């Protein structure tokens, strides 16, 4: 109780300085969020295509990989990416020359890699579902109208796929907002890490709870954006 309501810790000045620090940490959170989306969406599309390929070995390899990634905790994957090279191969991320011994950057890149792979697998399954849900008749209708395969995909199929995946993507992306907090476990100084540092150094506990406001605000924004997209797409067809 003392820690929560101590007069020293609840002044306006403390509040603004904590807010500034958390906002700084949230910047890293957002960077991780947007970079993950930026890479995971195209890679997910690639994974979806591979897992639909006619060439069976590659198809089943891809599906097995997706199964493993979706079947294990992201937390574990983070630790494997960030710590395993050092433990198993004596090649810790921080020793890789490209990072020039920049520890925070090395850990950030490691975490980003794990996030991208993990989310690409989830997205791949969403994309695959979205593509496979298009009735065969839509392709056939295009075919009998003399359209080429490229025209069929870009002019008829693609928008229907997007329409199919908006709702599940919205779910996944909101989950990503909150999953970024896991990066704290591999020393990425995002908002949650920042709040725990404040607790450790200044003995102020409320910033830990205050982080929730940042997450809430951001998920609200994401939900709103997806809602608008969904509304725009479903204005004309069910």
């Amino acid at each position, binding site marked *: 109780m003392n820690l929560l309501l101590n007069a020293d810790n609840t002044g306006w000045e403390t509040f603004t300085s904590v807010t500034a620090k958390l906002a700084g940490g949230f910047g890293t959170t957002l960077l991780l969020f947007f970079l993950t989306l930026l890479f995971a969406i195209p890679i997910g599309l690639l994974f979806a295509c591979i897992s639909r390929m006619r060439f069976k070995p590659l198809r089943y390899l891809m599906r097995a990989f997706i199964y493993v990634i979706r079947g294990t905790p992201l937390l574990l994957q983070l630790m494997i990416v960030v710590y395993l090279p050092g433990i198993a191969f004596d090649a810790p991320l921080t020793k890789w020359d490209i990072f020039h011994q920049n520890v925070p950057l090395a850990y950030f890149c490691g975490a980003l890699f794990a996030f991208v792979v993990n989310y690409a697998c989830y997205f791949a399954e969403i994309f695959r579902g979205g593509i496979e849900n298009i009735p065969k008749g839509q392709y056939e209708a295009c075919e*009998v109208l*003399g359209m080429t395969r490229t025209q069929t995909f870009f002019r008829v199929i693609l928008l229907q796929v997007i329409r199919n995946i908006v709702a599940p993507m919205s779910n996944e992306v909101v989950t990503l907002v909150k999953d970024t907090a896991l990066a704290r476990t591999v020393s990425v100084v995002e908002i949650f890490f920042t709040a725990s540092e404040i607790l450790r150094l200044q003995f102020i506990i409320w910033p830990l709870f205050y982080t929730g406001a940042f997450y809430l605000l951001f998920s609200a924004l994401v939900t709103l954006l997806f809602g608008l997209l969904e509304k725009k797409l479903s204005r004309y067809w069910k």
Partner: protein
Amino acid sequence: MALLEVKELTKSFGPTKVLKGITFSLQKGEVLAIIGSSGSGKTTLLRCLNFLETADGGQILVAGQPVFDAADPALLSPKNIRKNRMTFGLVFQNFQLFPQYTVLENLTLAAKLSAKMNDPDFKTNKKKIYADIDNRALALLERIGLAEKMDNHPCQLSGGQQQRVAIARALMLTPDILCFDEPTSALDPELTKEVLKVIRDLKSSGNTMVVVTHEMDFARDVADQVIFMAGGIIEEAGTPQEIFQNPKSALLKSFLSHE
């Protein structure tokens, strides 16, 4: 000369022989009704005509020219198939309109894409070409009585209206032979009527059509020829009178008695 000649068409899916040698011909302006129970091969036959399936054997000739010949691989190149399939139009049982486009766009999409690809004057004359396509689409919509729905999306139309739009969409590409795959099976009797009225109207303006149907009254009234299929062969063929008043084969008699 017959407009459409089909000779000894065969098709198997794995070990199952679905078409066991189908031969018939159709004059210009005639309507052919194909009847038969489910699994008799009538839909497969229609899909072979429209190149959605590749027949294993036999020939298809349109106005004397082969458009399909199982023995001639040159005819089966993707380029030739794309060219030859435009001889045929197909209307699906479940309409298969494009949900994201308006009625007008559904009609014009393929024609515009085709003009973009094939019309040598496209670059210099784009506006006029597109305007012509729009006007043709509007004229067709007038004809099927749906001009006022041009800016609606398919989900805002009744099933009968959607099927009429699908017919207009197929007509946009001016096929020589228009095929229908059970065009009214997904519709209630009231909506069936409005679709059949459009098909009748097409016949009176000289369109050649092949209709797979379960509507025996329609086959009797509109068709010039009726083919009864059973087990992958043409069990009996003839005029509607011969088929409906004087069926010879036992299978056809039994089929008609169930209707």
